[in-house]
């Protein structure tokens, strides 16, 4: 059924910390590795070792140079399905193969009923769906639905493969419908945001923006001090000693 279910209170999704992501693509490869054998199997590639390699992958990492006016920086930006609350990719599906789960909000494709018309990929503004030419059906992030509820694997592994693989802890998985969950708390604390919200599809996944860098903070402090009084002199002799050591070591 491609009509959307009643909104669930449980909204499983990812929170991706763009401050921490180093763009190593470990999430990309571990996603591919798990899903080419799991729910989405096969996740076929064409000409993988040739001149024109391409294939269906469910997670992609872009690296951007971002200009914020007073400074520029590199941001690594992982992009996958955002498991929208009101996804157009589901409602445009003519067969009911593309659906949103009522119980946890995960958006999935039923590979047995998908006719491979690709209309869902046209409806998605995030480019999150990739067509599998060998399989003739659309593939997308399943939020590792075959891991997170899987009681045959150790409990520590019951998170999406990308989250488990991330060496820097930039990816977190949880219930974004629960304001008390760790992911919701970090979104609230860091000003987490969704992508292209004006489309109105209410993406569940959130991105945590890069923090201001240390140099930016110290520069801002120095700029602030130039207009105010000189810093207070350390009073005790031990403080003077530390101040001297600090200056000497900074030279």
């Amino acid at each position, binding site marked *: 059924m491609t009509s959307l279910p009643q909104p669930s209170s449980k909204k499983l999704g990812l929170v991706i910390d763009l401050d921490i992501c180093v763009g190593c693509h470990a999430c990309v490869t571990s996603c591919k590795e798990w899903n080419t054998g799991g729910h989405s199997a096969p996740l076929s590639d064409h000409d993988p070792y040739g001149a024109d390699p391409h294939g269906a992958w469910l997670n992609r990492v872009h690296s951007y140079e971002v200009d914020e006016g007073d400074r520029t920086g590199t941001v690594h930006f992982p992009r996958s399905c955002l498991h929208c609350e009101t996804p157009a990719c589901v409602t445009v599906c003519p067969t009911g193969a593309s659906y949103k789960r009522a119980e946890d909000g995960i958006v999935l494709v039923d590979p047995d009923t998908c006719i491979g*018309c690709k209309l869902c990929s046209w409806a*998605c*503004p995030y480019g999150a769906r990739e067509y599998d030419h060998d399989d003739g059906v659309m593939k997308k992030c399943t939020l590792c639905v075959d891991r997170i509820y899987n009681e045959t694997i150790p409990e520590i592994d019951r998170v999406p493969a990308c989250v488990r693989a991330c060496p820097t802890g930039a990816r977190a998985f949880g219930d974004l419908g629960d304001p008390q969950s760790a992911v919701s708390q970090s979104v609230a604390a860091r000003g987490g*945001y969704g992508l*292209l919200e004006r489309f109105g599809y209410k993406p569940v996944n959130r*991105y945590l923006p890069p923090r201001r860098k240390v140099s930016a903070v110290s520069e801002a402090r120095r700029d602030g001090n130039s207009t105010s009084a000189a810093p207070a002199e350390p009073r005790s002799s031990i403080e003077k000693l530390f101040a001297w050591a600090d200056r000497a070591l900074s030279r």
Partner: protein
Amino acid sequence: MHPAYSVIVFTTASGAGYGLLFWLGLGHAAGLLPAPTWIFFVAIALSLLLITVGLLSSTLHLGHPERAGRAFSQWRSSWLSREGVGGVAPYVPAGLLALASLAGIESGWTQPLGLLSALGALATVVCTAMIYACLPTIRQWNLALVPVVYLALAAASGALLLACLFAMSGYSPGPVSVLALVSLAGAALAKIAWLKQIDAAGGDWTRRVAPGLAKVSIRQLDPPHTRPNFVMREMGYAIARKHALKLRQIMFAALFAAPALLLVLSLAVPFAAPFMLTAAVVSAGTGLLVERWLFFAEATHVSMLYYGLQRA
């Protein structure tokens, strides 16, 4: 957007078929067509043939054509599903109408069949256009003029086919030629308005807002992959502005100018009408293929902003 030939053939052939069926059904219901004869049968058969070719062609673009029947199920939410249901439904009244004309039955109950056929054809073309017009991700398609253009072009190509059929079978195509001229003019106006609209708006979405990061500007340092993936191949098809303008000229000449000229000439020189109207059909058909190819090639998709497209 990648212009898939199967979809181009589907929308143009079935569009002309539904256009022809619309005029036949409407003309029959209003009692304006010549009495049901073999010509009427041939015309309905031709419309159903074009519709069938179009629908079959559309399945070529599916990954699993054998599952196409499933597409009838989600008409509550999906325009593609509605198009499938609407596309097949007119076969019933149109088929009955064709059989009645073949059997030489003339009675009042065939008129509702004509009306049903016309309404079905009209609804189906609207559904076809809405598959595209309902997508906010593609600004060139997400416009009220898209269904208008699809309807006008279906009406024009159908009327042109009917005029040609009449001329070839010895009937005076005069009134139908005028109908074809008027609908061609309407389609040209709608098309011009649509082109103006897509050229004027640069797109609300920019590369800067897509990842939601930059206050000033953003530049892709490293793409996620070295070769184009499905998203780039399907959604990232781009045509050079220069080529698009040249193709637009070809489209206008072949789809509107030449057929209109030939229609006027055929009205002035009735004995040459069969040849002129055949030439008009060939020219308009070619122009229609170019028009539909451009409809896809000139469309930009928001997801390409992640891959460096400036605006969409």
